[in-house]
Protein backbone atom coordinates (compact mmCIF):
# COMPACT_ATOMS: atom_id res chain seq x y z
CA UNK A 1 0.00 0.00 0.00
CA UNK A 2 1.21 3.48 -0.72
CA UNK A 3 0.68 5.80 2.21
CA UNK A 4 0.84 9.56 2.00
CA UNK A 5 1.34 11.48 5.26
CA UNK A 6 0.38 15.14 4.97
CA UNK A 7 2.03 17.54 7.44
CA UNK A 8 2.20 21.30 7.79
CA UNK A 9 4.22 22.13 10.88
CA UNK A 10 1.53 21.72 13.50
CA UNK A 11 2.53 20.53 16.98
CA UNK A 12 1.05 17.15 16.23
CA UNK A 13 3.06 16.62 13.09
CA UNK A 14 5.91 14.88 14.93
CA UNK A 15 3.51 12.63 16.79
CA UNK A 16 1.71 11.73 13.57
CA UNK A 17 5.01 11.02 11.84
CA UNK A 18 6.15 8.90 14.78
CA UNK A 19 2.98 6.82 14.84
CA UNK A 20 2.88 6.39 11.06
CA UNK A 21 6.51 5.32 10.90
CA UNK A 22 6.02 2.83 13.74
CA UNK A 23 3.07 1.25 11.99
CA UNK A 24 5.10 0.90 8.82
CA UNK A 25 7.88 -1.09 10.43
CA UNK A 26 7.67 -4.66 9.20
CA UNK A 27 4.93 -3.87 6.71
CA UNK A 28 5.24 -3.67 2.97
CA UNK A 29 3.78 -0.21 2.75
CA UNK A 30 5.60 2.64 1.09
CA UNK A 31 5.51 6.03 2.73
CA UNK A 32 5.70 9.50 1.25
CA UNK A 33 5.44 12.69 3.27
CA UNK A 34 3.72 15.69 1.71
CA UNK A 35 4.51 19.07 3.26
CA UNK A 36 2.16 21.97 2.80
CA UNK A 37 1.49 25.41 4.24
CA UNK A 38 -1.90 25.40 5.97
CA UNK A 39 -1.87 29.18 6.30
CA UNK A 40 0.18 32.21 5.29
CA UNK A 41 2.16 32.05 8.54
CA UNK A 42 3.59 28.61 7.85
CA UNK A 43 7.18 28.47 6.62
CA UNK A 44 7.04 25.55 4.24
CA UNK A 45 10.83 25.33 4.01
CA UNK A 46 10.93 24.73 7.74
CA UNK A 47 8.26 22.04 7.54
CA UNK A 48 10.15 20.42 4.66
CA UNK A 49 13.36 20.47 6.68
CA UNK A 50 11.68 19.01 9.79
CA UNK A 51 10.19 16.19 7.76
CA UNK A 52 13.55 15.34 6.20
CA UNK A 53 15.26 15.37 9.60
CA UNK A 54 12.60 13.17 11.12
CA UNK A 55 12.90 10.60 8.37
CA UNK A 56 16.69 10.54 8.65
CA UNK A 57 16.53 10.18 12.42
CA UNK A 58 14.27 7.16 12.07
CA UNK A 59 16.34 5.55 9.41
CA UNK A 60 13.43 4.79 7.12
CA UNK A 61 12.84 5.24 3.45
CA UNK A 62 10.31 7.90 2.64
CA UNK A 63 10.34 10.63 0.04
CA UNK A 64 9.23 14.15 0.85
CA UNK A 65 7.01 16.02 -1.57
CA UNK A 66 6.03 19.66 -1.55
CA UNK A 67 2.46 20.72 -2.14
CA UNK A 68 2.11 23.86 -4.22
CA UNK A 69 -1.03 25.81 -4.92
CA UNK A 70 -4.13 25.46 -2.80
CA UNK A 71 -3.04 22.97 -0.14
CA UNK A 72 -6.42 21.37 0.49
CA UNK A 73 -7.29 20.43 -3.08
CA UNK A 74 -3.69 19.78 -4.12
CA UNK A 75 -3.11 17.37 -1.24
CA UNK A 76 -6.41 15.62 -1.97
CA UNK A 77 -5.65 15.32 -5.68
CA UNK A 78 -2.17 13.96 -5.06
CA UNK A 79 -3.45 11.42 -2.55
CA UNK A 80 -6.22 10.22 -4.86
CA UNK A 81 -4.01 9.97 -7.93
CA UNK A 82 -0.94 8.28 -6.49
CA UNK A 83 -1.70 6.74 -3.09
CA UNK A 84 -3.96 4.25 -1.34
CA UNK A 85 -4.20 5.88 2.07
CA UNK A 86 -3.89 9.44 3.35
CA UNK A 87 -2.76 10.03 6.91
CA UNK A 88 -2.74 13.37 8.71
CA UNK A 89 -2.17 14.68 12.22
CA UNK A 90 -5.54 14.86 13.93
CA UNK A 91 -5.76 18.57 14.53
CA UNK A 92 -4.26 21.01 16.99
CA UNK A 93 -5.55 21.92 20.45
CA UNK A 94 -7.10 25.17 21.51
CA UNK A 95 -6.11 26.75 24.86
CA UNK A 96 -8.88 24.79 26.64
CA UNK A 97 -7.78 21.59 24.93
CA UNK A 98 -10.48 21.45 22.24
CA UNK A 99 -9.51 19.79 19.00
CA UNK A 100 -9.38 22.18 16.07
CA UNK A 101 -9.30 20.96 12.51
CA UNK A 102 -8.07 23.36 9.86
CA UNK A 103 -9.50 23.99 6.39
CA UNK A 104 -7.25 21.39 4.83
CA UNK A 105 -8.55 18.69 7.19
CA UNK A 106 -12.10 19.68 6.43
CA UNK A 107 -11.67 19.69 2.68
CA UNK A 108 -9.88 16.36 2.73
CA UNK A 109 -12.47 14.70 4.97
CA UNK A 110 -15.33 15.90 2.80
CA UNK A 111 -13.77 15.40 -0.62
CA UNK A 112 -10.86 12.97 -0.79
CA UNK A 113 -11.85 9.74 -2.48
CA UNK A 114 -9.62 7.40 -0.53
CA UNK A 115 -9.32 6.25 3.08
CA UNK A 116 -8.20 9.06 5.39
CA UNK A 117 -6.81 8.53 8.86
CA UNK A 118 -6.40 11.28 11.45
CA UNK A 119 -3.70 10.41 13.96
CA UNK A 120 -4.24 11.37 17.61
Amino acid at each position, binding site marked *: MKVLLGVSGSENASYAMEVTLERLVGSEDDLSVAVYAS*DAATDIDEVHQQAREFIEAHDVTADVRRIEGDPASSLSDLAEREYDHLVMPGGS*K*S*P*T*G*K*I*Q*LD*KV*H*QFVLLNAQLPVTLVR
Partner: protein
Amino acid sequence: MTRRYPDERVSDFPKPPAEIVDHEDREIAIRVLDADEAEDLVGMYLEFNPEDRAQGIPPVEEPQIRDWVDSVCIENGHSVVAWYDEDIVGHAMLVDDDTGAAELAVFVLRDYQGARIGTALCETLLGHAQTLGLERIWLSVERWNEPAIRLYQNLGFQRTEQETLELEMTMRLEPE
Protein backbone atom coordinates in the same frame (compact mmCIF):
# COMPACT_ATOMS: atom_id res chain seq x y z
CA MET B 1 -6.18 33.58 11.55
CA THR B 2 -7.31 36.83 13.13
CA ARG B 3 -10.43 36.48 15.16
CA ARG B 4 -13.13 39.10 14.69
CA TYR B 5 -14.70 40.62 17.78
CA PRO B 6 -17.87 42.71 17.88
CA ASP B 7 -17.47 46.47 18.18
CA GLU B 8 -20.13 46.67 20.87
CA ARG B 9 -19.13 45.80 24.40
CA VAL B 10 -21.20 43.64 26.73
CA SER B 11 -21.38 44.48 30.39
CA ASP B 12 -23.14 44.06 33.73
CA PHE B 13 -22.55 40.42 34.41
CA PRO B 14 -23.05 39.29 38.01
CA LYS B 15 -19.86 38.69 39.95
CA PRO B 16 -19.06 35.53 41.89
CA PRO B 17 -19.91 34.24 44.45
CA ALA B 18 -23.55 33.61 43.69
CA GLU B 19 -26.29 31.37 45.01
CA ILE B 20 -29.04 30.12 42.78
CA VAL B 21 -31.92 27.75 43.08
CA ASP B 22 -31.92 25.74 39.89
CA HIS B 23 -34.92 24.45 37.95
CA GLU B 24 -34.93 21.32 40.09
CA ASP B 25 -35.08 23.36 43.31
CA ARG B 26 -31.50 22.54 44.22
CA GLU B 27 -29.43 25.18 45.98
CA ILE B 28 -26.32 25.71 43.90
CA ALA B 29 -23.38 27.79 45.09
CA ILE B 30 -21.23 29.33 42.38
CA ARG B 31 -17.72 30.36 43.38
CA VAL B 32 -14.33 31.03 41.93
CA LEU B 33 -12.34 27.80 42.05
CA ASP B 34 -9.62 27.61 44.67
CA ALA B 35 -6.37 25.85 43.69
CA ASP B 36 -6.76 23.45 46.62
CA GLU B 37 -10.13 22.34 45.24
CA ALA B 38 -8.44 20.61 42.29
CA GLU B 39 -9.37 17.19 43.63
CA ASP B 40 -13.04 18.15 43.75
CA LEU B 41 -12.87 19.27 40.13
CA VAL B 42 -11.22 15.98 39.17
CA GLY B 43 -14.08 14.30 41.02
CA MET B 44 -16.63 16.05 38.81
CA TYR B 45 -14.88 14.98 35.64
CA LEU B 46 -14.62 11.39 36.82
CA GLU B 47 -18.42 11.45 36.89
CA PHE B 48 -18.75 13.26 33.58
CA ASN B 49 -20.51 11.38 30.77
CA PRO B 50 -18.13 10.89 27.81
CA GLU B 51 -21.07 11.44 25.44
CA ASP B 52 -21.21 15.05 26.59
CA ARG B 53 -17.67 15.81 25.52
CA ALA B 54 -17.07 18.68 23.18
CA GLN B 55 -14.21 18.50 20.67
CA GLY B 56 -12.25 16.05 22.77
CA ILE B 57 -12.64 17.58 26.22
CA PRO B 58 -12.88 16.74 29.01
CA PRO B 59 -10.56 13.73 28.78
CA VAL B 60 -12.05 10.37 29.67
CA GLU B 61 -9.31 8.47 31.47
CA GLU B 62 -8.29 9.46 34.98
CA PRO B 63 -4.59 10.24 34.36
CA GLN B 64 -5.51 12.51 31.45
CA ILE B 65 -8.29 14.14 33.49
CA ARG B 66 -5.83 14.94 36.30
CA ASP B 67 -3.29 16.31 33.88
CA TRP B 68 -5.87 18.47 32.09
CA VAL B 69 -7.36 19.80 35.36
CA ASP B 70 -3.90 20.72 36.65
CA SER B 71 -2.27 22.15 33.56
CA VAL B 72 -5.24 23.68 31.74
CA CYS B 73 -7.96 24.41 34.27
CA ILE B 74 -5.88 25.38 37.30
CA GLU B 75 -2.55 26.63 35.96
CA ASN B 76 -3.70 28.36 32.79
CA GLY B 77 -7.34 29.07 33.49
CA HIS B 78 -9.70 31.22 35.51
CA SER B 79 -12.51 28.99 36.73
CA VAL B 80 -15.83 29.26 38.47
CA VAL B 81 -17.54 26.13 39.68
CA ALA B 82 -21.04 25.17 40.78
CA TRP B 83 -21.29 23.32 44.08
CA TYR B 84 -24.23 21.18 45.14
CA ASP B 85 -23.63 20.18 48.74
CA GLU B 86 -20.09 18.85 48.74
CA ASP B 87 -19.73 18.14 45.03
CA ILE B 88 -18.76 20.22 42.05
CA VAL B 89 -21.45 19.68 39.42
CA GLY B 90 -20.52 22.35 36.87
CA HIS B 91 -17.40 24.19 35.72
CA ALA B 92 -16.80 27.17 33.47
CA MET B 93 -13.34 28.46 32.61
CA LEU B 94 -11.46 31.05 30.63
CA VAL B 95 -8.03 30.12 29.33
CA ASP B 96 -5.66 32.74 27.95
CA ASP B 97 -4.58 32.37 24.35
CA ASP B 98 -1.45 33.98 22.95
CA THR B 99 -3.17 37.18 21.85
CA GLY B 100 -4.43 38.48 25.19
CA ALA B 101 -7.89 37.04 24.58
CA ALA B 102 -9.38 34.07 26.44
CA GLU B 103 -11.23 30.98 25.31
CA LEU B 104 -14.34 29.97 27.24
CA ALA B 105 -15.43 26.40 27.94
CA VAL B 106 -18.25 25.17 30.20
CA PHE B 107 -19.28 21.70 31.36
CA VAL B 108 -22.15 20.56 33.56
CA LEU B 109 -22.78 17.02 34.80
CA ARG B 110 -25.65 15.37 32.97
CA ASP B 111 -27.97 15.17 35.99
CA TYR B 112 -27.60 18.91 36.39
CA GLN B 113 -28.01 19.97 32.78
CA GLY B 114 -31.06 21.85 31.58
CA ALA B 115 -31.48 23.55 34.96
CA ARG B 116 -29.83 26.89 34.12
CA ILE B 117 -26.63 26.06 35.95
CA GLY B 118 -24.61 26.48 32.74
CA THR B 119 -26.06 29.95 32.24
CA ALA B 120 -25.34 30.97 35.84
CA LEU B 121 -21.78 29.65 35.56
CA CYS B 122 -21.10 31.58 32.37
CA GLU B 123 -22.67 34.80 33.66
CA THR B 124 -20.58 34.82 36.83
CA LEU B 125 -17.47 33.77 34.93
CA LEU B 126 -17.93 36.72 32.58
CA GLY B 127 -18.54 38.97 35.60
CA HIS B 128 -15.30 37.68 37.05
CA ALA B 129 -13.59 38.32 33.70
CA GLN B 130 -14.76 41.94 33.83
CA THR B 131 -13.10 42.30 37.23
CA LEU B 132 -9.91 40.76 35.83
CA GLY B 133 -9.95 43.25 32.96
CA LEU B 134 -10.35 40.64 30.21
CA GLU B 135 -11.96 42.13 27.14
CA ARG B 136 -11.88 39.64 24.28
CA ILE B 137 -13.57 36.30 24.85
CA TRP B 138 -14.07 33.54 22.28
CA LEU B 139 -15.33 30.00 22.13
CA SER B 140 -16.02 27.22 19.70
CA VAL B 141 -19.12 25.04 19.81
CA GLU B 142 -20.35 22.15 17.70
CA ARG B 143 -22.79 23.41 15.09
CA TRP B 144 -25.51 20.96 16.10
CA ASN B 145 -25.39 21.88 19.81
CA GLU B 146 -28.42 24.18 19.72
CA PRO B 147 -28.93 24.56 23.49
CA ALA B 148 -25.31 25.67 23.90
CA ILE B 149 -25.48 28.05 20.94
CA ARG B 150 -28.65 29.62 22.37
CA LEU B 151 -26.99 29.99 25.77
CA TYR B 152 -24.02 31.78 24.24
CA GLN B 153 -26.21 34.00 22.08
CA ASN B 154 -28.27 34.98 25.13
CA LEU B 155 -25.08 35.96 26.93
CA GLY B 156 -24.16 38.22 24.03
CA PHE B 157 -21.73 36.12 21.99
CA GLN B 158 -21.84 36.64 18.24
CA ARG B 159 -20.95 34.21 15.46
CA THR B 160 -17.76 35.06 13.61
CA GLU B 161 -18.85 33.25 10.41
CA GLN B 162 -15.47 31.51 10.14
CA GLU B 163 -15.41 28.63 7.69
CA THR B 164 -14.43 26.21 10.40
CA LEU B 165 -15.87 22.81 11.20
CA GLU B 166 -16.99 24.13 14.58
CA LEU B 167 -18.95 27.33 15.14
CA GLU B 168 -16.85 30.13 16.56
CA MET B 169 -18.34 32.95 18.66
CA THR B 170 -16.79 36.04 20.21
CA MET B 171 -17.62 38.74 22.72
CA ARG B 172 -16.06 42.04 23.72
CA LEU B 173 -16.41 42.68 27.43
CA GLU B 174 -16.51 46.00 29.22
CA PRO B 175 -13.88 45.79 31.97
CA GLU B 176 -15.15 46.83 35.40
